């Protein structure tokens, strides 16, 4: 490590290439801030997935100015995936070797500004899609090659997904979605630092990386629904909402724009084609990581272009692959919590968003047992934090937002023998279902299905099940095949 700049860096300082600003750019990206002393700004003109023109401006140290200049040369007139593949190492090589100690941030800064300009380009292309959801014709690109857009969260599963696809001969482009603002420095997915980490990971694998800003779509389709569910006495599942409206749609949008055929995520599930040609999901090789339960709302048209490479692997194998290939993500912790609530305090999150009115806690006979501070604090099946003492443990059996009441009872009162399910998404004929799963990681229960019409079915369970909460997903299987899924109705 040297403390001096080499002559190539100084040349970029004195004769910056492509300095300036485009008048009618198709994307603008800025990174850094004046308080930390460095700001980079790129404007790009993109036509037919080609970076036709680029201009840059930098305020900051020599390293930042030179890195911006060198980056603009590296990506000039490149196809977008090539531009999005340029890594910190490429940039350092273009600058004639390592920068002086303490100046490495320059590489991150200018790459981030360029990538934000590309992100801005996609967001302009996407228009309403990133607010309303992708309603496009799901037209598949055919560039004649095996090609896939792989979603990258920054964790080990998505990294290995992209790697396996690359090794299987696919043209791989990775994408990270900005879903919420998160907390800077937190390890929650989709936070600003996680985007940088995901980009590094993709670049280390030699893969292009894009970002899409889906904050508005995510807020509308996932976070508002999450908060609204609590207020309405339902138990939300934000991962399900995201899979239903956000993640697969956005990946498909990008694939279509790039002319790519497939999309992929790091879910543990398998996509299978039934003898009749119907495409559905099957449980993965690693039963302990089975994520099919949260994938039921993925539209069939999208599922049929989806690849889940990890469906054939066990988690230990995935970590081992990451280790063997030297991916830094091999040791990232398992994400457990809801991504936009990294501290796991769901109640605290919801309470910041909705006002809570105190009300009564009653038994099923209507007798008042105590007071609560707001129905948002309760979900069906809950035992802790009820605040009423009783000789036998009490459970929440019902939440009635309209009366501002929480109904409690004994464990036995939670048992249900039938479940009413709406918002259905079928991959196979509903009559084929032989079992239903009503919670993540719970065993499926044998059932018979009755079609109630109006997009609802009733599942009669072979044995009583505890705590089926309205708002939860009910997912139907035939053996290890998914038949379809839906949302448990309030009046079940």
């Amino acid at each position, binding site marked *: 490590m040297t403390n001096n700049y080499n002559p190539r860096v100084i040349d970029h*300082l004195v004769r910056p290439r492509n300095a300036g600003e485009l008048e009618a750019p198709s994307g603008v990206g800025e990174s850094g801030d004046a*308080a*930390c002393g*460095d700001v980079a700004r790129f404007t790009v003109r993109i036509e037919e997935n080609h970076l036709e023109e680029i201009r840059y*401006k930098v305020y900051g140290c020599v390293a930042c100015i030179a890195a911006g200049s060198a980056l603009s040369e590296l990506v000039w007139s490149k196809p977008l995936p090539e531009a999005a593949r340029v890594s910190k190492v490429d940039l350092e090589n273009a600058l004639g070797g390592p920068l002086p100690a*303490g100046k490495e941030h320059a590489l991150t800064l200018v790459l981030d500004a360029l990538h934000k300009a590309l992100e801005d380009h996609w967001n302009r292309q996407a228009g309403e899609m990133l607010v309303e959801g992708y309603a496009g014709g799901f037209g598949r690109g055919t560039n004649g090659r095996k090609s896939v857009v792989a979603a990258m969260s920054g964790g080990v599963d998505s990294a290995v997904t992209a790697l396996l696809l690359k090794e299987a001969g696919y043209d791989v482009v990775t994408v990270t979605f900005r879903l919420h603002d998160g907390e800077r420095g937190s390890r929650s997915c989709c936070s600003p630092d996680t985007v940088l980490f995901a980009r590094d990971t993709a670049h280390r694998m030699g893969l292009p990386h894009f970002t899409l800003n889906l904050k508005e779509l995510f807020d509308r389709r996932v976070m508002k629904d999450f908060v609204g569910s609590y207020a309405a006495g339902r138990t939300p599942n934000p991962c399900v909402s995201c899979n239903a409206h956000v993640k697969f749609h956005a990946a498909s949008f990008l694939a279509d724009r790039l002319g790519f055929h497939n999309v992929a995520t790091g879910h543990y599930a398998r996509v299978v084609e039934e003898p009749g040609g119907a495409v559905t999901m099957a449980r993965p090789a690693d039963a302990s990581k089975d994520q099919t339960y949260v994938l039921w709302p993925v539209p069939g048209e999208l599922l049929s272009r989806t690849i889940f490479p990890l469906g054939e692997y066990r988690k230990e194998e995935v970590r081992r692959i990451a280790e063997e290939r030297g991916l830094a993500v091999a040791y990232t912790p398992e994400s457990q919590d809801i991504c936009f609530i990294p501290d796991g305090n769901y109640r605290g999150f919801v309470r910041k968003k909705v006002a809570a009115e105190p009300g009564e806690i009653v038994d099923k006979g209507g007798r008042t047992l105590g007071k609560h501070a707001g129905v948002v604090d309760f979900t069906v099946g809950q035992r802790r934090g009820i605040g009423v003492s009783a000789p036998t443990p009490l459970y929440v059996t019902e939440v009635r937002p309209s009366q501002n009441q929480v109904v409690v009872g004994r464990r036995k009162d939670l048992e249900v023998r039938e479940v009413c399910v709406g918002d259905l998404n079928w991959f196979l004929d509903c009559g084929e279902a032989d079992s239903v799963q009503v919670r993540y990681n719970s065993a499926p229960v044998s059932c018979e299905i009755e079609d109630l019409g109006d997009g609802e079915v009733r599942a009669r369970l072979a044995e009583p099940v505890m705590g089926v909460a309205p708002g939860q997903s009910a997912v139907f299987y035939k053996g290890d095949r998914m038949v379809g899924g839906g949302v448990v109705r309030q009046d079940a």
Partner: protein
Amino acid sequence: MQNDVVYLDHAATTPLDERVLEAMLPHLGRAPNGSPRGNPSSLHAPGVFAREAVEEARASVARLVGADDPGEILFTAGGTESDNLAVLGLAAADPDKKHVVISVVEHPAVREAAAHLEVAGYEVTSIGVDADGLVSPVELAGALRPDTALAAVMWANNEVGAVQPIEEIAAICQEVRVPLHVDAVQAAGRLPIDVSRIPVSTLALSAHKLYGPQGVGALYARGDIELEPVLFGGGQEKGLRSGTENVAGIAGFGEAARLAYEELADRTRHEEALREALISGATGIPGVRLNGHREKRLSSNIHVSVEGVDAESLVLFLDALGCAVGSGSACASSTAGHKASPILLAMARTPEEAISSIRITVGKDTTQQEVNTFLDSFATAVTQLRELSPLYTSKN
């Protein structure tokens, strides 16, 4: 490096004067009488030759600062060592007193020595400066206590060139009998210094800031002052600075001090004229602001904040155009990353102003032609860097 560099970083180091080099050569194995190199402590002829050179230099340095007795000059390895010896040595000489007062704009050699004392249990009071970088004698007087072991205020600041009211400060310290250490590394050779008139206790000097060699300094220590050594060994320099003397360096320092004394008025007049041309030229560009007191500043120093421009980029841009200037002080700018100068922050400058500041320091041999060349390059660099900035918008 190009030969035609416009060198405007004399506060970092000055070129070695040819006459100084000539004075050093006899002690680098080129004695005219063929004498081998001797150790000043030796009794034989080569030893005497070396010792006489050291004592002659001591007399020259004493004369430069107005010391009556050359024995009050101790040679060291540079300004930093002199500052350390003074701060640590004065504190150690009066071990019952555990309080030290320094100004917030001291050179790191003083600040860090004081911080070292703080770790050892001393209390350190830092007194501030006004927006021009000047220490208030009244504030200093208020900070002195019966248990104050020493105060340290520099004569002229190395970054912004502010010249402190040392005469008043010395009088205050003398009155309450607190030893005063003065870092005169930047002042010596640019301002008249007369310790026979101004009662400082110790005074740090460095040869390479006045056209002498690097690696040699001196500490003036008033005859009646108590001082403990920080180096231990053969007892050279009255036991206060053990170690065989850097004879060639000291001889060079002596010659540099002699020339500085004789040429002081001419040098100052010459530098001031160039300084004024630089100030009016540089601040003629919009968004360029002079730091430090307009009049109470070193003849050699121009320090400006350049709005919308990062100092490192400006310094290296100018370097590429053949002009060598400083960003902050050389010590502060060698560390990686953006470190706002604590001196500018103490002068109530914003961090943005502090990281956009450069120091331009002329010397006795700087020419008007060089100043003109610099001003052209400065305008070019500032314009281009501002054009490149996504933040800067001209306020015309």
